[in-house]
């Protein structure tokens, strides 16, 4: 029952937010997100020792249940979602948005969808939440985004919707192969899917994988991403890049690997190659960007590429690494966007060629930028290092005959990552001091947000054990 609360609180608060007129809605959003955080912490603690679940029949004639499962991986991602949202709300406390009630209402609704995706253990319920997370984001980007927001967001929506529909076809097909009263439960789907012949598994694999590949995004399906990140308002960009792309990766781990093992094995090399192309391609593109937001967007493609490459290299270390890295990447990229939005706010531009000298005029902000950037390129003592180390370990011990080649080329991504990230740090923090529009260093509320993020970065960099323990053993369940 407590599990339902995790989803119910943001859902109800989101619906309620629309009726609050005025700035008071921020308080509501903050309170709701903090309660969600509390409940998520509780769930994580409980799932730490033993996974637990909740299930009531939903549409009996179809065999669907309102079934939620909390294990280490899902509660970890819930925790990430629950941490990111209050941080976003706190750091944006002083900013005024047009129609705040709708803005925060949609934010909370999309949080409910995300939490639902991470917890659902019924395929139809999973699909429901998958879409519930998307629709509010569509409205958020289209209403509060940049100049080219309408066509860009529409492209994003159509891309992901096509993917979702293909996934729906796959889910329905799998459910039609099951028997018994709980056709859509994770267990039935896994049983039915893994019993299919290879030929069928391949077809179903692509039907389902396309949705996840678009969401992550993996190389040829990524074209919606930089534009959408750039045009969205920063809080939404954070939701998209820190949380929503994790949906894709999470879904691969939960709903693809165990369900279609042979199909995955057959196509894994192809996906790894696509991911690695994505890493190198996005890294090179990131190097030539002058807009910081686009740079971070491309760097995100590169990081997600590495995670998906490790995922499809089918080794347990890699799987464990991805779970850890999903959390770390979510934290790091949130910090990155926060700093980027502060820069945009203070200097009135995101163009790196017009920025510089932050260390002189806003030293605290510069320190935050440096720490977060270092975490982003996975330096030891930051959380990024632990995850990335495990990912490379996973790639190296992969089952594919080309695993060494894969690892070496993917390793290029790290070097290129250092180039574009440090280049950005240099151009914004040092050099000639550019004129600020608002001459202010970090304000109190931004300080709180960045403190949380940097605290987690350093803490997990030095002592990653809780995170590792939390997700230990899950890989074995997913890929026996």
């Amino acid at each position: 029952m407590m599990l339902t609360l995790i989803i119910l609180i943001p859902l109800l608060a989101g619906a309620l937010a629309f009726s609050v007129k005025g700035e008071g809605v921020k308080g509501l959003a903050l309170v709701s997100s903090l309660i969600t955080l509390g409940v998520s912490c509780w769930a994580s603690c409980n799932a730490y020792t033993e996974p637990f679940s909740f299930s009531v029949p939903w549409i009996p004639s179809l065999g669907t249940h309102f079934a939620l499962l909390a294990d280490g991986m899902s509660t970890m991602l819930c925790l990430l979602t629950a941490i990111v949202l209050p941080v976003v709300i706190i750091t944006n406390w002083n900013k005024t948005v047009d129609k705040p009630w709708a803005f925060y209402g949609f934010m909370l609704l999309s949080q409910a969808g995300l939490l639902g995706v991470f917890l659902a253990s019924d395929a139809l319920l999973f699909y429901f939440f998958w879409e519930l997370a998307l629709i509010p984001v569509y409205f958020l980007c289209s209403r509060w985004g940049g100049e080219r927001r309408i066509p860009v967001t529409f492209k994003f929506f159509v891309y992901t919707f096509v993917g979702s529909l293909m996934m729906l076809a796959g889910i329905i097909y799998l459910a039609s192969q099951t028997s018994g009263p709980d056709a859509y439960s994770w267990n039935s789907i896994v049983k039915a899917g893994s019993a299919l012949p290879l030929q069928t598994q391949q077809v179903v694999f692509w039907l389902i994988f396309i949705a996840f590949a678009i969401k992550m995004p993996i190389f040829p399906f990524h074209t919606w991403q930089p534009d959408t990140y750039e045009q969205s308002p920063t809080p939404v960009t954070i939701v998209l890049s820190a949380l929503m792309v994790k949906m894709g990766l999470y879904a691969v781990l939960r709903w693809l690997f165990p369900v279609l093992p042979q199909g995955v094995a057959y196509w894994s090399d192809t996906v790894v190659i696509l991911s690695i192309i994505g890493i190198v391609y996005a890294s090179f593109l990131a190097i030539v960007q002058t807009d910081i937001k686009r740079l971070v967007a491309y760097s995100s493609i590169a990081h997600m590429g590495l995670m998906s490459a490790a995922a499809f290299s089918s080794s347990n270390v890699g799987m464990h690494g991805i779970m850890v890295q999903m959390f770390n990447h979510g934290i790091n990229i949130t910090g990155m966007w926060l700093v980027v939005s502060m820069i945009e706010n203070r200097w009135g531009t995101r163009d790196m060629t017009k920025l510089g000298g932050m260390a002189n005029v806003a030293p605290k902000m510069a320190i935050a930028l440096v720490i977060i950037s270092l975490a982003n390129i996975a330096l030891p003592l930051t959380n990024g290092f632990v995850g990335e180390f495990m990912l490379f370990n996973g790639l190296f011990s992969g089952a594919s005959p080309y695993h060494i080649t894969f690892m070496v080329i993917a390793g290029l991504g790290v070097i290129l990552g250092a180039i574009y990230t440090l280049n950005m740090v240099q151009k914004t923090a040092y050099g000639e001091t550019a004129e600020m529009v608002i001459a202010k260093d970090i304000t109190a509320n931004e300080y709180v947000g960045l403190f949380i993020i940097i605290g987690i970065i350093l803490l997990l960099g030095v002592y990653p054990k809780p995170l590792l323990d939390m997700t230990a053993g899950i890989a074995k369940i997913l890929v026996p």
Partner: protein
Amino acid sequence: MKAIIAATIFGILLMFVSLMMKDKKAIASLAVVALFVLFGVNLWDLIQSPAGSSQTYFNNMLNVSYYGQLFNTLMTGCTLLYALLVSKEIQKVGAHVAEYFALIFFILVGVYLLSSYNNLLMLFLGIEIMSIPQYILAGSDKRNLKSSEASLKYFLMGAFSTGILLMGITLLYGATGSFSLAGLSFLQANTINAMAVAGILFIMMALGFKVSAAPMHMWTPDVYDGAPTPFTAYMATVVKAAAFIAFMQLFRFSFGNVSNTWMMVLAVITAITLFVGNITAVFQQSVKRMLAYSSIAQAGFMLFAVLASNTAAANHGMLIYAVAYSVGTIGIFTVLMKLKDYTYDGFNGLAQKEPLLAFVATIFLLSLAGIPLTGGFMAKYYVVMAAVQQGNLMWLVIFALLMAAVSVYYYFRVIIAMYFKQGDAELSSEVTGGDKFMLILTCLLVILLGVAPQLFLAGI
């Protein structure tokens, strides 16, 4: 059975009411009350008959099943909802309000026959009783040339398709010596002859015309566009659903044994319907015309229920689709009627002016596009599931889902216009508190259908 009698009596009574009452508002209220009573009668019929039962009337001419009664009840409910939402607009169409409502009652008689016919003659009668009032309603705005054109076009095309239907029935009679569905179900795959196949295909063409399946859809955009909007809303929803249930029952129960003769033809018709409906809708400038094409596209999905051989899944799918599509379409047409300009630009900035109207329109459009949490999703879900269980229709399912993605384009164009474009959406009439209440109710119904569809499938 009581419902058929009640609907007929109400229809006849309403025709005479216009002699005594001149107040349009009073007549409309009377009709709504009559519809309410009719809904109650249907419910009474439904409760009295145990689930899964069926009873025959008129020497086996009618076979009233529980499923058919559930369909009747739901469609009468939709008609009631429709009357409550648009009775004001119906009063604006012309002077003969009592006749318009009387014709709607006669259409309902046709709907009831189509859900329970047990004989091809009853099928023919049902279709005619349902169609002839529609020809009149399409032309009811007598001063408008487009309305007259729509009526004439509809009548000529309808008469033509009726001829084809009769031809098909005749050929089948020649082949089997029977008009009754039970007699037809003796058709076997190994003994079927060319005459019977031709008969089946002729009937398929005629029914395809009624449900506006491509390539028999040509009349739809012109008629839907030309007819007065309140009546378009009705033609596109309840009437179409009734034609579908007739289609489904005939092909499933009587021609099920010989599905190898018509299955592929119908699958291709479905694919063409989906393609033509969705792709053409993209290029429309008028929302009303777009909705006409979207109704063709939605018909493509409903054809899945005819194609699917799994009875339970298809039966569920047909009902849910009929209700979800009807409620959603009636809702969006109601919003459309409140606007002066039927083009996309006419919707610009509606969210600023009438936030509630824009919100409910968004829900209806999301439902038509098939987004989860709305009835439209569950409807698509059920029919797609029925088709997937068929096994060999996976190609059609994937094609249909891709086409559903196309449909997002034209449905969302309206949402974009309402919320993200600047403009001054002019209203044709004021949105009263009663309108708002009904629209919110409709909206809740759409969401209820999306969350708990089993409530509408009680007993089957």
